[in-house]
């Protein structure tokens, strides 16, 4: 995956990291073509672990959304945009087409989804998970060494927030 993300210009590598920490701007080592500086120095890129963590968290969220939609027909359509969003985000982070890296697998941390729940309760659980996902993506954006990766993660966080707001609008319109 490292090679693929570097090809996308997402991972900065150690040299780029040094550049922006010394005040040269977070993008200084990335926007010039995203050269795999980390690989040339032989040092591990700290963003690789960050990307893996984000991929796992997105896979967990996707698993919850998918299971909730499968368990309740009335929610399936409303949750489809979230499912498609997370799949698109995971695809960009995985870049499996270029690297052969396996798709992200959920950690199983979403807990037991079995048992009877009302649609409102199930939707509430998904919304809370999406709010958490939005916040974690924002935190990951701030933590990223690469400016390019930070921008991508910030955009993903904004997309989740936007989808949450759209869902809230739909809910309000349906109850008013």
């Amino acid at each position, binding site marked *: 995956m490292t090679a693929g993300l570097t090809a996308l210009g997402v991972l900065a590598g150690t040299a780029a990291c040094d550049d922006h920490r010394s005040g*040269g*701007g977070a993008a200084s080592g990335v926007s010039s073509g995203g050269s795999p500086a980390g690989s040339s120095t032989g040092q591990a890129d700290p963003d690789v672990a960050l990307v893996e963590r984000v991929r796992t968290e997105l896979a967990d969220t996707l698993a919850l959304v998918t299971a909730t939609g499968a368990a309740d027909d009335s929610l399936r359509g409303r949750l489809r945009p979230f499912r498609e969003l997370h799949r*698109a985000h995971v695809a960009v982070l995985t870049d499996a087409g270029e690297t052969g890296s396996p798709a992200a697998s959920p950690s199983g941390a979403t807990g037991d989804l079995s048992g009877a729940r009302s649609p409102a309760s199930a939707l509430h659980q998904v919304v809370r998970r999406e709010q958490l996902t939005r916040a974690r993506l924002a935190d990951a954006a*701030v933590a990223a060494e690469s400016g390019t990766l*930070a921008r*991508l993660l910030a*955009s993903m966080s904004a997309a989740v927030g*936007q989808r949450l*707001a759209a869902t809230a609008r739909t809910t309000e319109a349906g109850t008013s």
Partner: protein
Amino acid sequence: MTEIEALQAVLAAEHAAVYVYGVLGGQASQSAQPALFSSVSDAYATHRSRRDLLTGEITDLGAHPVAAAAAYDVPDALGGPAAIARTARRLEDGCAAAYAALVESTTAHRRRWAVGALGDAAVRVLAFRGTPETFPGAGEYTDH
């Protein structure tokens, strides 16, 4: 893009937003389109506040904040709510892209602020009949 360049680009986008939202506010009818009028008014206040904050930030960094242009392009035909909403969406999309660039060019607390502003712009688009995107402010990933 350096941090200062990114801040200046965002300030330029905010100058444009303040100007154009001012025009849109004069075109939206408070009585006939209260929701649209309210959204335009809220957006104007938010962008004015951000403009002032950015001006202070850039000054604190020892640079001269980019000045507002004398005027900005506003579509001639702003006769109805659809045109007002379309113009507002275009403004917010531009601000989202500028904030995304600021995320890339900053670190720590300033980057966190930019992340929040990007998310805010993405949500505000919805108030102007916008539709959710997969990568707000970073549309090049959509075709990945």
